[in-house]
């Protein structure tokens, strides 16, 4: 099967709910299994009925999760325990450690706070995680005898990985979310020149070329500083792990340097635990943190304290980090409702918000937000968007393409219009096909198939020897000619004599020798030289060699006989049946000589 097929069940021309089906070489692989944070109904999870009605184990060979963000793994327990999947699930060690915590967090918010029905249970999260096989960066993992996978560093969040997947001779790279510039605690994504048939890349920031990181950081600190100076409260909605750690490092050092006194709170029991993960998986952070971790742990914060719900109404300035990051539920939303009506306050959204969330609404300038219970909240506080989200921008995506040299690109996890722009850019700059299927739409990527065949070394060596003996000529093509011996369990290309021996048969060599009588005075050697010149002229592409009185044109032999004082000369032309074309051509040339 020379085609690779990709069907997004989520994240096709869309952000959120990443879930792709990849088919190649007769294998089906699910890439990510995310949920959409903007919905409370069945649109929350990917539509698995596309695969099958009922359990999907029989239709999916393996599931690969790129990182712990819920829009990439949030539907995993639903898929494995409620739809039914008992095959292997692959993810990196940090993802395996952190994903179940975020899943449990989200489950609690959904079931206990919002009273949602038909949601997965804590036990289901545990059962799901038992199916997980943890992988290490660059380790080559054989899923079965045909599927090989390998993880590459993706930056983005702790443990995020890009996956290279190979079935037979076809290969695909799936990036998940990634960033190409190092930040305060993570390194930049890296991949080698693996030349996949297809690169499936996220394109969240497909049209943005982000300004320098330093400027954005300065801007962020200035705004926070101004707000607390005027006695305002700053709310920063974050996810517990990821951006939160980076912003904490940033504020911690700034508070220290500027000697600020306003309290910074981190509203989560998870903080210490979260930081513990960062400590233990420090090998996944960037070089600087790795180098200094023995002396000073970057994740022990002096100025940042645990938040208590009662502090919401405290007077005076403060900075609060609260989850979740898109203001769609939980504490961050609760604080927002309280603080939004005061124009002294400020909310800083440090990441992308999916459609349907409160975060998305206020970022689009909504001055009033209405809630389920008809409660209306006026938004007077300053709303700031700071793109700290570690996704690759257009430049980064182009860089990645340049690094791994794919034959085709497929864009997911981005908005349709922006994707279109990037798609054209990619096609222009790299002259390669670029796809961006919508959800439920299948992109078919045809790939050249190469068939590996064993070859006898003497055959290869003979060719190499012949090739290197010729004068270098960039236009000259190398030719390999041999006989393929096909047996029940083996196939091997070899030289004809070797092949006959291997097959146990004897070759029958058919040779022709034709004699041309011609008149040419002088020694026969002179005649031979004249013939050689003539053949060289008539057959410019063939090698014409004169040695030991004989002319060889490739493997056709030409010989002149006759006494030096006799005008009559006999010219013998001899060739095997394999050289019939060349042999008869030479014979024709010589027969038609009237005069030298």
């Amino acid at each position, binding site marked *: 099967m020379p085609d690779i097929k990709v069907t997004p069940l989520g994240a096709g021309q869309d952000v959120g709910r990443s879930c792709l089906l990849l088919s190649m070489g007769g294998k089906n692989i699910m890439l990510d299994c995310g949920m959409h944070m903007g919905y409370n109904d069945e649109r929350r999870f990917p539509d698995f009925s596309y695969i099958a009605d009922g359990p999907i184990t029989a239709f999916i060979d393996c599931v690969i999760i790129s990182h712990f963000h819920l829009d990439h793994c949030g539907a995993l327990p639903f898929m494995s325990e409620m739809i039914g999947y008992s095959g292997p699930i692959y993810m990196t060690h940090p993802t395996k450690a952190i994903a179940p915590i975020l899943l449990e967090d989200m489950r609690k918010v959904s079931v206990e706070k919002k009273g949602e029905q038909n949601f997965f249970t804590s036990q289901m999260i545990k059962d799901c995680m038992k199916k997980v096989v943890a992988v290490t960066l660059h380790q080559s993992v054989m899923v079965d005898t045909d599927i090989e996978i390998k993880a590459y560093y993706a930056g983005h969040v702790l443990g995020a990985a890009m996956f290279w997947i190979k079935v037979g001779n076809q290969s695909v790279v799936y990036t998940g979310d990634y960033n190409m510039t190092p930040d305060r605690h993570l390194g930049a994504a890296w991949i080698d020149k693996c030349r996949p048939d297809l690169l499936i890349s996220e394109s969240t920031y497909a049209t943005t070329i982000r300004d320098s990181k330093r400027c954005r950081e300065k801007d962020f600190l200035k705004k926070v500083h101004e707000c607390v100076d005027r006695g305002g409260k700053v709310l920063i909605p974050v996810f517990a792990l990821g951006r939160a750690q980076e912003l904490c490092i940033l504020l911690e050092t700034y508070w220290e340097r500027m000697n600020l006194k306003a309290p910074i709170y981190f509203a989560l029991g998870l903080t210490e635990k979260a930081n513990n993960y960062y400590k233990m998986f420090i090998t996944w952070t960037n070089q600087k943190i790795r180098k200094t971790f023995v002396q000073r742990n970057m994740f022990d914060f002096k100025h940042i304290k645990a938040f208590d719900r009662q502090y919401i109404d405290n007077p005076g300035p403060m900075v609060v980090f609260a989850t979740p990051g898109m203001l769609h539920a939980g504490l961050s939303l609760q604080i927002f409702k309280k603080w939004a009506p005061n124009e002294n306050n400020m909310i800083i959204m440090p990441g992308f918000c999916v459609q349907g969330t409160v975060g998305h609404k206020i970022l689009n300038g909504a001055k009033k937000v209405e809630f389920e219970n008809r409660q209306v909240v006026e938004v007077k506080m300053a709303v700031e968007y700071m793109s700290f989200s570690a996704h690759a921008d257009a430049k980064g995506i182009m860089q990645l393409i340049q690094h791994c040299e794919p034959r085709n690109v497929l864009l997911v996890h981005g908005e349709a219009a922006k994707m279109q722009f990037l798609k054209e850019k990619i096609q222009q700059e790299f002259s390669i096909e670029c796809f961006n299927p919508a959800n439920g739409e299948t992109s078919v990527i045809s790939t050249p198939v190469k068939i590996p065949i064993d070859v006898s070394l003497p055959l290869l060596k003979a060719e190499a020897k012949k090739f290197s003996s010729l004068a270098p000529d960039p236009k000259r093509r190398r030719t390999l000619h041999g006989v393929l011996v096909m047996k029940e369990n083996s196939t091997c290309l070899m030289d004809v004599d070797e092949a006959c021996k291997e097959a146990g048969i004897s070759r*029958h060599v058919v*040779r*022709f020798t034709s004699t041309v009588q011609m008149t040419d005075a002088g020694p026969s050697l002179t005649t031979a030289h004249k013939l050689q010149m003539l053949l060289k002229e008539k057959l410019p592409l063939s090698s014409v060699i004169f040695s030991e009185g004989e002319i060889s044109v490739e493997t056709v032999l030409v010989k002149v006989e006759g006494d030096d004082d006799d005008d009559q000369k006999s010219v013998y032309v001899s060739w095997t049946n394999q050289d019939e074309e060349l042999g008869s051509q030479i014979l024709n040339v010589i027969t038609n000589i009237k005069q030298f």
Partner: protein
Amino acid sequence: MKLYCLSNDPNKPCHILTFREITMMLDCGLSMQSLLNFLPLSFVPSNKLMNLPNWMPSDTTDPDLEGELKENGDRVFVDSPPEFCPPLDKLIDFSRVDVILISNYLCMMALPFITEGTGFKGRVYATEPTLQIGRLLLEELVVYIEQCPKSSFASQWKNFVHKCPYPLNESFKPKSWRQIYNMKDVNASLSRIQMVGYNEKIDVYGALQVIPASSGLCLGSANWVISTEHEKVVYLSGSSTLTTHPRPMDHQSLKNADVLIMTDLTQTPISNPDSMLGVLCVVVGLTLRGGGNVLIPCYPTGVVYDLFECLSGKMAELGVSNCPMFFVSPVADISLAYSNILAEWLSSVKQNKVYVPDEPFPHAMLVKNNKLKHFKHIYSDGFSTDFQEPCVVFCGHPSLRYGDVVQFIELWGNNPRNCIVFTEPDFDYIEALAPYQPLQIKVAHCAIDTSLNFTQANKLIKDLKPKTLVVPECYTQPPVSAPNLTELVIGTHAESSVIPYKWGEVINLPLKRKQGQVYFEPNVAQKIIPVEVKPGISLSTVTGTLNVKDNVHNIQDFSSESKTDKLVKYEWGTLNITEFMQKLSQEGVTDGKVESLGGVVVIHLQDEDALIQLEDNSTHVVCNADENLRTKIRNIVMQCLKKF
């Protein structure tokens, strides 16, 4: 394929393997046995060591030798900064080495000798823990030696070795011994290492693929699988099948090799590590309860992690948990910290702890509870205030020739209530103690070596089924220490032939590659027309354009414009003469005169002035320039022969 052996110590291996034009170094272990011939380095001048009498060979009065050798008991020691025996550099120019593969952090101490100042330009591969922990060992060694500078370097003694008493007279190639490298060389050398993960496929100049496979011995330890499409060589270095803290050994990827090179087996073939650990716990318990101190000379990583865990439990059981453990090494803090961030390289039991998240090793907790205290040196801030007796001290170096252990022997050596316990198997404990004798301190020998023993190694070979097994010669004979224990050898194996090697040898390994690999493009494959020449065997000629890139051979279809786009076929079998004559006459050639001469049949066509010579495996048509005739005969010959 050739194997060069550059180290005389199978536990500190260093080999060169040449294979497909690639020169590969397998490990670069540094033999440290030479250390035992030197006086200990003490950073606090030791009266005892300083006052040892000079020694001179009885018939020598060379003034240059004066003061170089000191005597204690029946042993003679060199009074000089210690020297090391680096890998043999005469067989191969290190600048020619393309790749160095490092198996574990115990097998890389010679790396700066190989890569610095030799013109080395190759690549070095090691796992992340091997690099990080190896760095600790190299740095510790340099700090230990540099902190005790000696004013003079002894060198004359090397000319009088033969006149010295045992064991100095038997020291191995002392003239090749060298001073230790410096920190600059260590850093330069380590910066060349490229970190790799287990089962990562690493391409070596397009000629070979190498893959590290977990070897179960220590954090990040690996065996190496070196392969092409058709050949597989396995280099098995320090490995363990016991369950301790590292990831278990990966057997699967080592199977069915053409060549298995096996080295670095246990140094304690007679004792078993579990019972040794048991003895150790008893000794520590007894000593502490009797009010004595325990001194455990050790490396700053490895088994010591298991000792912390095991001893702390045992001490609580024996009611001596109020006695602290001290871990003194210039790299103690880093070693403890690193061990707890390398979860991906640990056994699954330890690995699962980080998902909670808990530290994989309990020593972080022991440090937090003040049960285990670590210091860079005994003169570091806080040590004297924290120091309390009785206690257990872990410190280096196991040779007792440098490091803080020298001071502890001074401090505790004359009290019989104290006990020194030897757990590292690298050095003979009697030789290690020799310069300090006489001592009152009790001595316990509980060497814990988790490397493969001979039973395990033989079982493994049976399981892996290599075609050829290559081992150090010493493994084919019973150990020198136990010549009667003939089972302590690598035995004969029905499916593998054994080739022994020794120091300084270059051996040819039987690996004759017969096949390579090419890739056909689909349209090349489509043109294949198999002809069955025998049941189950089909042949087809193939011709295509060859493209070679990074050693990958692609066969593409000739483009249509090419004049060489023709299908070459081969004839086979014998030609039936009766059938041939019949067909000739059908075509109007009836004047053929058949003559048989030996195995050759000659057909004369007198009218046409042509001659056809037939043999079993050949046909020769000789005629004048009449192409009509020749073509006619050719067609008939072709009709009478089978083709593929």
